[in-house]
């Protein structure tokens, strides 16, 4: 099963190599830059889809495509151990697809100094591919940081309004989160006595000799708050809407869509299986903070007038469901969370991209100053309506988010039945802001400002260059919506291997 291990390595290496090439070919003009960078995004996507097809269900959720390399830190038990299991693989595929869409969108953007912009984006993509392919938890962290640093740079240089403040705030918050989780990971490494950062070794070792409860308590606390900050757990979420509001759209797509899932992935794959007593001690914290995400942030989302900020808040809000699903500790709940991470990653990336396209046409992100866009841009309108419906998890054919949230709801009902009321209230809230946004932007009368701006800027529908990245995302979204089994089968098997996740009856 390790035949295609080099493809995993290449998926990480290609974007990074392409990043440097992009800088180099900058002098040959824009087309060269576009070709090199798009290749850097497309190859990992092809590799990932190929690996997805070749992942053998017969190995029942184990790691496939494994490779191991010593990078010189063997003294603290670190090795570059790569591989994909039923949890990592779908996220790996999602990362590559969102990356391709973001790359295609960025390559045609009007950003100044395009080669450097694409350089940052490609480095980020390399890091993202590494995050979900790492079996070694040190490299898991390392690749996350590799992807995170370019985000700050992109927000700071190419960002919109308040970019300096937003970049600074993001940097400080996320550094704090990363440091806490790093200390948490070191705690696991040192206290386990396994002398290894390797997840497989650690799991085997801790299954034999679990950590003392007190150790699990503080180690899980560190990881919960460290990852929590990175995933924008309430009330440590304030960096997210601000940062996404300021970030250039392809950076926001990759961060909100993919990178933010790092924390959840870390909880599901590392923190909970390794520290099963830890999560039980922190269970109430998770539940109450997650409710903060769903209800408090949900209400804040309803009050947003800026489209990008609203999408940013809504993505924060959805993280609440993910935390609840994890707290339920059942295969159904956690599987639902992973499925939601994929579906949400695709839709939120799509929404950020579409919102920038709307901005190109209306010259504003203020929803009050828009209106009636559907007449001028019916295709854009169709895309937006479709992705917003998916994002707020309306039940509909082929909308993956609905299946994801449904399984989370069933799991939390089995976990603590009263939570279902809050969760349903959240659904109502998201329906309100989602549908209202659609109405404000696309339907109704054209606002005065919009009429004014049309005199200067002609409004056209989506061009093919814009449609391609959007189509990529929407096709994959519908594919997993209609055939969820392609994801859930191996996911289910991988999760069932973890003793901590209970089987639902």
């Amino acid at each position: 099963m390790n035949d295609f291990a080099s493809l995993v390595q290449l998926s990480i290496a290609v974007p990074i190599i392409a990043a440097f090439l992009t800088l180099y070919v900058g002098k040959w003009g824009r087309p060269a830059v576009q070709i090199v960078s798009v290749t850097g995004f497309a190859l990992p996507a092809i590799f990932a889809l190929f690996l997805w097809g070749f992942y053998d269900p017969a190995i029942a959720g184990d790691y496939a495509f494994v490779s191991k390399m010593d990078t010189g830190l063997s003294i603290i038990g670190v090795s570059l151990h790569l591989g994909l299991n039923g949890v990592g693989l779908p996220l790996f595929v999602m990362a590559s697809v969102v990356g391709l869409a973001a790359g295609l969108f960025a390559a045609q953007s009007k950003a100044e100094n395009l080669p450097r912009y694409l350089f940052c984006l490609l480095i980020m993509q390399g890091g993202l591919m590494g995050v979900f392919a790492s079996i070694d938890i040190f490299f898991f962290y390392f690749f996350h940081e590799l992807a995170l640093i370019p985000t700050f740079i992109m927000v700071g240089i190419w960002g919109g309004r308040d970019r300096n403040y937003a970049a600074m705030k993001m940097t400080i918050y996320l550094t704090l989160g990363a440091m806490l989780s790093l200390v948490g990971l070191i705690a696991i490494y040192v206290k386990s006595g396994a002398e290894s950062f390797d997840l497989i070794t650690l799991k085997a070792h801790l299954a034999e000799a679990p950590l003392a409860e007190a150790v699990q308590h503080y180690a899980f606390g560190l990881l919960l708050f460290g990852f929590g900050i990175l995933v924008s757990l309430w009330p440590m979420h304030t960096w997210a809407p601000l940062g996404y509001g300021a970030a250039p759209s392809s950076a926001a797509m990759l961060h909100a869509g993919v990178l933010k899932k790092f924390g959840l992935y870390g909880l599901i794959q590392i923190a909970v299986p390794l520290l099963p007593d830890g999560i039980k001690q922190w269970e109430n914290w998770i539940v109450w903070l997650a409710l903060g995400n769903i209800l408090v942030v949900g209400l804040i989302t309803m009050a947003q007038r800026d489209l990008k900020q609203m999408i940013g808040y809504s993505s924060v809000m959805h993280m609440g469901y993910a935390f609840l699903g994890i707290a339920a500790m059942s295969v159904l709940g956690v599987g639902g969370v992973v499925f939601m991470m994929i579906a949400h990653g695709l839709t939120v990336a799509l929404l950020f991209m579409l919102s920038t396209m709307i901005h190109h046409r209306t010259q504003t992100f203020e929803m009050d100053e828009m209106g009636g866009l559907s007449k001028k841009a019916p295709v854009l309108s169709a895309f937006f309506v479709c992705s917003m419906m998916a994002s707020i998890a309306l039940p509909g054919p082929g909308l993956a988010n609905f299946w994801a949230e449904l399984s989370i709801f069933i799991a939390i009902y089995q976990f603590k039945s009263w939570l279902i009321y809050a969760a349903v209230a959240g659904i109502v809230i998201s329906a309100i802001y989602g549908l209202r946004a659609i109405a404000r932007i696309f339907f109704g009368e054209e606002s005065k400002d919009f009429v004014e701006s049309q005199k200067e800027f002609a409004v056209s529908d989506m061009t093919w260059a814009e449609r391609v990245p959007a189509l990529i995302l929407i096709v994959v979204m519908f594919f997993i919506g209609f055939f969820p089994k392609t994801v859930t089968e191996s996911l289910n098997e991988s999760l069932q291997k973890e003793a901590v996740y209970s089987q639902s009856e």
Partner: protein
Amino acid sequence: MSTEYFQKIAETNIWGAIAPELALGILALALLAMEVTLPKVAHGLIPRVAILGQLIIVGVMLTYGCSGFCYTGEAFGGMLSFSETGQLFRAFFLGTSIFVSYLGMVSLEKKTLPEVEYFHILLVITAALMLLAQANHFVMLFVALETATVGFFILVSYFRDKAVSLEAGLKYLIMGALSSSILLFGIVLLYGAGSNMELVGGNADPLNFGNLKNFLAANPNDMLGLMGMLLVISGIAFKIGAFPFQVWIPDVYQGAPIPTTALLAVASKGAGFAMLLNLTTVFSALSEWLYPLLSLLAALTILFGNFAALSQRNLKRLIGLSGVSHAGFLLIGIVAAQKVDWAVNAIMFYLFAYLLASAAVFSVLAHMGKEDDSELTLDDLGELAKRNGFLGMALAIGIGSLAGIPPLAGFIGKLLIFVAAFKAELYGLLGVAVVGVVVSIYYYFGIMKAAFFDVWRYQDEDEEVQEKPVPGASLQLLGKLAILVAVLGTIVLGFYQVPLGSWLAG
């Protein structure tokens, strides 16, 4: 003392073991000779000869490793003790000296001051520091340290036409003299305690590290010994700029010429840690007092360095204060080394990473092209990336490594220190370190913001004509090469440490 006594000591003299130091001394003298003999037009060669000579010394040291001249064990009547760590410190000081020579070449070219003396003194300081790292006797330690410190006094006030440089020199002289006297007082107390023949372990030569260690082990509650230890540690804390002995740092760093600032930041700090590493074993019997003291110093140093740097806009002061916080992180390593053997290697890795990052940052500052480099502020960095992309890149990598951002060497250094600290169960210090890292992001970010943000975005707009000097006008092939070595070293050590792997493992 009889002649036989001296003969017996002379038998332990292994001159080959100090060949690198001797070579440096000869090179230093050769530079002076060259100034006298060479015609004036050829004087530009002298700094290049200095650099080349040092490169050869490093090359020979690394090629032959410990097989040729390197000797392990005591020599020179117990004055020096050679070990692998000492060998690494030699390489560290030589590396620092090479970078400082290069910076000196750049900075002095703009001046009409005598050049040769700078390199001469630099080489002497380097040789002294290399001996200091291998000292096994307090007399040797003090003499080596004073040789270096006296050299520092001159180099700090080298720009004698500038008031700020002279002022820095005077401040350093006063504070340096104070710290030397504190250190000396501590040594004297240790001598007084250890030479007491009435006590178990009393010895005629109590300043030898081994003898003193045995004495302290036999008398761990000796008040004089304890006071001596306290004073010696205080004297060293001055060298590394640990709180509360860091007051001199901002002013002296600001006033000194850039190469001297770099030398102070890297070599002086390295020297302090070389001494600490040796002395913590000597004072191991007093660990009950020593480690709480060092832990306290570490915590306060990290907090002070980072919080004081927050509001700085002067670049040299900022780097100086950030250096204070790095001393704090290294102190954590020293404390951890009590329980975790390989923490020593973590400290060495951190120091080398710090050397490379500092080399990159100081090279950029030296090339900023400002007449008065003591007044370099964040504003002067404005649009650096646009005005000189190469320097901008070097600054970004250097600052990133200082901030501990992966995948750069500084991150691995911090990681190793953190893991060692966790293994040694220093949870409180780890908490302080995390706070320190997060706070430090603010000012490192400020530097990046000044150099990059606002720049690329508006590249094509017609802005008012820049009156700022052109950075990097003095940058030549040699300079680019030097900066590239620092930058590439920082990046490669960040994710590929295989060549060091076995060494890291101890």
